[in-house]
């Protein structure tokens, strides 16, 4: 298996808006591949389309399986963890119940999770909706990591977090990427430069650049692709 994920001519139209207009890219096995682009170019929709959470057409190959016709739960059971953009923890459920839902079998790695996020053990009985944004992000990442799955789709884990927490979550993702393939949507370029091996850049619903994360050192290219100044 050369690619953990292969997306070909992915198209998504929602309520008359053609959001993805033939997205094609591959995510090699191992390490972090960053999916970049300005706001609203379709990064989140791409992740949701890979998982079948929005109606889509084209071809999606996840861990060597053609999944375009599959329902979401079946794609996830191939071994895909998902960290959504807005965390999407179940606010009425306790921390423990949020994690329990993500269990796919008896081998759930609670020890690893509680080692990384001791707060989740301390607050096991607390309602997730009463936690801070950072703590909710811990749940969201923990759910995706719990089963030790080989592919993680992670959508803007640093969004709305304090700089100290951003750095802590980057540490966690770095450790995860030692054992799994991560497709990371992230606006924070310093995080991307630290974690990513490869990059895929979207614009207007199509891929406009693929290459090495080292390309982000080229300030002119970064400005052209992302509309922001590069980060040293």
């Amino acid at each position: 298996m050369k690619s953990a994920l292969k997306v070909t001519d992915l198209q998504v139209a929602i309520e008359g808006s053609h959001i993805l207009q033939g997205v094609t890219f591959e995510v090699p096995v191992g390490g972090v591949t960053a999916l970049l682009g300005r706001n609203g170019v379709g990064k989140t929709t791409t992740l949701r389309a890979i998982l079948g959470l929005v109606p889509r057409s084209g071809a999606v190959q996840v861990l060597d399986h053609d999944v375009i016709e599959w329902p979401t739960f079946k794609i996830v059971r191939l071994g895909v963890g998902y960290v959504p953009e807005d965390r999407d923890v179940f606010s009425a459920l306790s921390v423990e119940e949020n994690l329990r839902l993500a269990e796919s079998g008896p081998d759930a790695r609670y020890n690893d999770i509680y080692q990384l996020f001791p707060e989740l053990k301390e607050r096991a009985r607390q309602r997730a909706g009463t936690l801070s944004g950072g703590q909710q992000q811990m749940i969201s990442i923990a759910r995706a990591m719990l089963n030790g799955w080989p592919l993680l789709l992670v959508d803007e884990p640093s969004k709305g977090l304090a700089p100290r927490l951003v750095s802590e979550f980057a540490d966690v993702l770095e450790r995860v990427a030692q054992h799994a393939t991560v497709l990371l949507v992230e606006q924070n370029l310093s995080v991307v430069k630290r974690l990513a091996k490869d990059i895929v850049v979207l614009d207007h619903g199509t891929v406009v650049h693929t290459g090495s994360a080292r390309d982000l050192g080229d300030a002119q290219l970064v400005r052209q692709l992302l509309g922001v100044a590069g980060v040293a």
Partner: protein
Amino acid sequence: MSVFLSITFSGVALGAIYFLAASGLSLIYGLMDILNFAHGLFMTLGAYAGWAVAVHLPSSIGAPGLFALSVVAAVLGGALAAGITEVLFIRPLYGRPVSQILVTIGLDLAVVGLLLGGFGSNSVRIPVPLWLIEATKVGSANLPNVDFLAIALGLAVLFSLEWFLRRTRYGIIIRAGVENRDMVSALGIDVGKAFTLVFVIGGAMAGLAGLLYAVVFSGDLVSPLQGDSLLIFAFIVVVIGGLGSIRGSALAALIVGFVQDYTNLYLGGHSGFAEVGNLSVVLLLALVLEWRPRGLMGSVA
């Protein structure tokens, strides 16, 4: 004092039946976004299943045994009807909520029409044991035994449902699905199974509500249109309690039962005010929606 106790007790019994009728409806809407207009049909079919068992099984079983089997048949009849409805009519229409609503309306009209064709508009009588018709003296009030039964079954279902929703994996899946169905799927869970389960649980409670309503408030009579009349109050309870909230449904059912019974007591005896109890419930709904659009314990408006 005895009037106060009797009316309060009757209000709780009515609330227990409304809770049984409404809680399944609330869960189905909360999880699946379906306003299930066939829910009244499940109540009617449950009541008919109870009647069929009671009149067709040998009387040597004895009246208490026959009635107990009627209750079981009503629960199973409602559950079976709901399960078949979900698998045959709702499942092929996932993602098309308007079509799902229309199919539940059509199904209700068609099956109630068949029942009217078979039974006419005449009611059938469920045989009940003598002690259910009698009353128990509490202080100076005579409280109908059948009200005790309704309250006991309502409480048993409430506690069982709470236990199921809080302690079992499928219960947690249903609570999570009410909040965010997509995210439940994105954790690798087949939400479709939860949909069927919720329909079956809702149908079982509706069947029980249908039988109890016939026994407690209709003089043991079952008619084809009974479920649809009860459905209106179930919808009102669901909206007042908050969509998807079981505790909200329980609280709202109790309030609606009290309001209806007390209004009937104080105003219903006056000429031209026979339906004032029903009117008071609709007014209550309007007031709650004005004050709190998401209902007493709901998370969404």
